[in-house]
């Protein structure tokens, strides 16, 4: 239901072209910077990265004022590998990155100013110019205790000022809440939400909570006596459901309106945390730990009022629907409150009203069936209704985890998913033996349980083995196959780093043709040669008879410069050939990318020189 819908939208948005991406975030909102003193001699810098955005691992620059504070290089966690058509694998961060800066406290200055420069891009295909952000840290107060893991929970060390972007915003500010994670969910198709809520309501109608409505409705219908036709019964129950639906719709509008006020606060960890806590409380009630109800006195007064109304008039039936919503509302309180909270985060009153209206219609479907059958059909009570309730409980817990996911470390998030999935699995009797005579449904639910168990274990194993990707929990176990800089298949170069090494290599290759390839990581056509030309079988066949030497001049040291100067090259790309006597074959240099067919011709020429 909601969650599946959430998941669908989430996946859409995680992809390259999120159709729901409303507009580009300002860089300081796409990459939210904060820093704090994490211990007596470390500063922790945190970037919260909006979904659909990423930061380059190798583009961070940190400077401290006073400079004497800096001690050693920043510790950057490994990033995720992003394939770049030209530059090969680059390491990037998504969601969140925490960088540790070692500091030296010898001088005991009271304050430090941290300047952080970072670079990032959005998946839609744009990049931001380097962003410089500054924050002031007070160092004096953390003599003993190291800060704890959460941000903002240590009043003494949580002293970062609001980050100030070096790039001030001159354009109009984006609409409030547009950039919140949750609000993004609502840029999808509204009808999808509405259909989801209808289904949600339909499911709700199978909880024991809706049962009290059936006698009320039956009472109305039976109260009409023997003259009731099916059409009339359907009409009456329709009006009844409408009354209920409009009541819920009003609640939805209210929730939407309150959400508009709330949305500004929705990126605050405390607010998200509070919402998540409410969802957990609601979930526990679905598991039957306690009942959430209106106070009994109020309920009985409303029930009394509804029995005073005469069922005959349409208006009376309508009013009864309204009252029933008020009575039964608290009975389905947990999921309803969940729905209302969820709606409130959209900040959209119209959508909220429509969604809740659809939900109430969904809830009313069995009631319409009761009416249409003139009271003959009633849903059967059974333990399966408890199962539906528990299902809601699991969903509410999942929403709770989802809500706090932007503000908790990925590892904690994965552990939470693991716990939820494993507990659900146990609930579904995933590891209880099946009785031999088990029926289809029992087997099916055990199957679902086993899937949940395995998924939960995957999250657990992933989290404990250093995997930090919720969508690929086991990625931490992956070998180093995706490491950058893997040599092109087939061409094994002998590396040289200086003139002396080169001369030695050429001398050693006496009697063979030599190919010298200048290479650098930043050189696009070198990469292209590697990928498209050197991998060609014709090229490889000809290269087999040559000595292949490569000078990797990425670092640009003085020795590299010397190498380039010898061949009067400005820089890579450059491929130079030597004849078997060790002399350069003049006029045969390859500068820039060359496709395999042309390069084969060059190689043939080189091999032809004796």
């Amino acid at each position, binding site marked *: 239901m909601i969650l599946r819908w959430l998941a669908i939208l989430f996946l859409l948005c995680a992809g390259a*072209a999120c*159709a729901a991406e409303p507009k580009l975030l300002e*860089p300081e909102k796409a990459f939210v910077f904060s820093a704090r003193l994490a211990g007596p001699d470390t500063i922790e810098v945190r970037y919260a990265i909006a979904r659909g955005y990423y930061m380059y691992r190798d*583009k961070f620059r940190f400077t401290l004022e006073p400079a004497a504070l800096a001690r050693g290089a920043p510790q950057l966690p490994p990033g995720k590998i992003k394939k770049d058509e030209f530059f090969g694998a680059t390491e990037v961060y998504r969601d969140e990155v925490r960088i540790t800066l070692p500091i030296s406290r010898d001088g005991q200055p009271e304050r430090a100013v941290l300047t952080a420069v970072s670079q990032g891009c959005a998946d*839609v295909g*744009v990049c*931001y*110019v380097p962003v410089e952000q500054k924050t002031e840290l007070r160092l004096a107060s953390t003599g003993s205790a190291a800060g704890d893991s959460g941000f903002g929970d240590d009043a003494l060390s949580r002293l970062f000022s609001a980050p100030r972007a070096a790039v001030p915003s*001159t354009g109009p500010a984006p609409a409030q809440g547009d950039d919140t994670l949750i609000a993004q969910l609502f840029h999808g198709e509204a009808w999808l939400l509405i259909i989801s809520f209808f289904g949600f309501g339909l499911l709700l109608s199978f909880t024991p909570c809706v049962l009290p409505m059936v006698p009320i409705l039956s009472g109305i219908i039976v109260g009409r006596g023997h003259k009731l036709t099916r059409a009339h019964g359907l009409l009456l129950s329709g009006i009844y459901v409408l009354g209920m639906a409009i009541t819920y719709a009003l609640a939805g509008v209210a929730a939407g309106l309150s959400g508009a006020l709330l949305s500004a606060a929705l990126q605050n960890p405390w607010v998200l945390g509070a919402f998540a806590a409410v969802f957990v409380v609601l979930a526990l009630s679905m598991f039957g730990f306690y009942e959430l109800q209106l106070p009994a006195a109020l309920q009985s007064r409303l029930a009394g009022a509804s029995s005073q109304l005469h069922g005959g008039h349409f208006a009376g039936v309508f009013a009864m629907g309204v009252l029933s919503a008020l009575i039964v509302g608290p009975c389905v309180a947990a999921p309803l409150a969940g729905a209302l909270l969820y709606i409130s985060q959209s900040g959209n009153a119209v959508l909220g009203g429509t969604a809740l209206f659809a939900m109430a219609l969904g809830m009313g479907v069995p009631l319409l069936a009761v009416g249409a059958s003139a009271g003959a059909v009633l849903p059967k009570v059974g333990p399966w209704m408890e199962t539906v309730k528990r299902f809601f409980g699991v969903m509410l817990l999942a929403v709770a985890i989802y809500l706090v996911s932007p503000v908790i470390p990925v590892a904690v998030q994965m552990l939470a998913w693991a716990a939820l999935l494993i507990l659900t699995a146990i609930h579904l009797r995933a590891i209880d033996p099946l009785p031999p005579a088990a029926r289809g449904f029992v087997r099916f639910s055990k199957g679902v349980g086993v899937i949940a168990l395995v998924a939960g274990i995957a999250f657990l194993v992933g989290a404990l083995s250093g995997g930090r990707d919720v969508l690929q929990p086991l990625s931490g176990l992956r070998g180093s196959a995706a490491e950058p800089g893997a040599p092109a298949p087939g061409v094994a170069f002998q590396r040289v780093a200086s003139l002396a090494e080169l001369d030695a290599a050429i001398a050693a290759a006496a009697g063979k043709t030599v190919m010298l390839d200048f290479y650098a990581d930043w050189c696009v056509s070198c990469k292209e040669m590697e990928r498209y030309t050197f991998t060609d079988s014709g090229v490889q066949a000809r290269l087999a008879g040559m000595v292949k030497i490569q000078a990797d001049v990425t670092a640009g040291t003085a020795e590299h410069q010397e190498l380039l100067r010898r061949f009067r090259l*400005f820089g890579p790309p450059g491929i130079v050939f030597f004849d078997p006597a060790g002399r350069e074959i003049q006029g045969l240099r390859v500068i820039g990318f060359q496709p395999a067919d042309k390069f084969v011709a060059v190689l043939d020429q080189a091999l032809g020189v004796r």
Partner: protein
Amino acid sequence: MAAAAGYFANLWRIGGLGPAQAPDAVTAILGSALTTLDGDPQTLAGFRGRVLIINYWATWCAPCREEIPLFVRLQREYGDKGVQFVGIAVDQADKVRDFAKEFQINYPLLIAGVEAVELSRQAGNKAGVLPYTLMLDRSGRIAASLVGGISEQRMRGELAPLL
């Protein structure tokens, strides 16, 4: 196809829709101080009167790199019809020089700091991102303000009425 169309439509949408008329922004952009790859000061004022296509980019920006070959081709094709591409790189001169050599960039490249991107916000680059391409007609009016990568078809479509 549809996905690609949607993708570009999306980029078009996030670009803040269409040629905003901001003559002051154009004046400021044309007059702003840039440097050549050799470090000499230069502005864009000398390109007035041509169909000027100003591309903000950087070598580290993958989506920027991808469209450079298209610009090179279009410059070759339309150069004698009064079309002038200019690349403003928010980057280091040596990296830009290397890149220009490799891709045989046939139009002027100038170096700028982040303030150039700031200035481009007024012309329509609201979020201040790269790549951003600003097209001016011969009288210096903004003909197109394109955030993100541009398809060849779109680029040709924008150019055609300006020739």
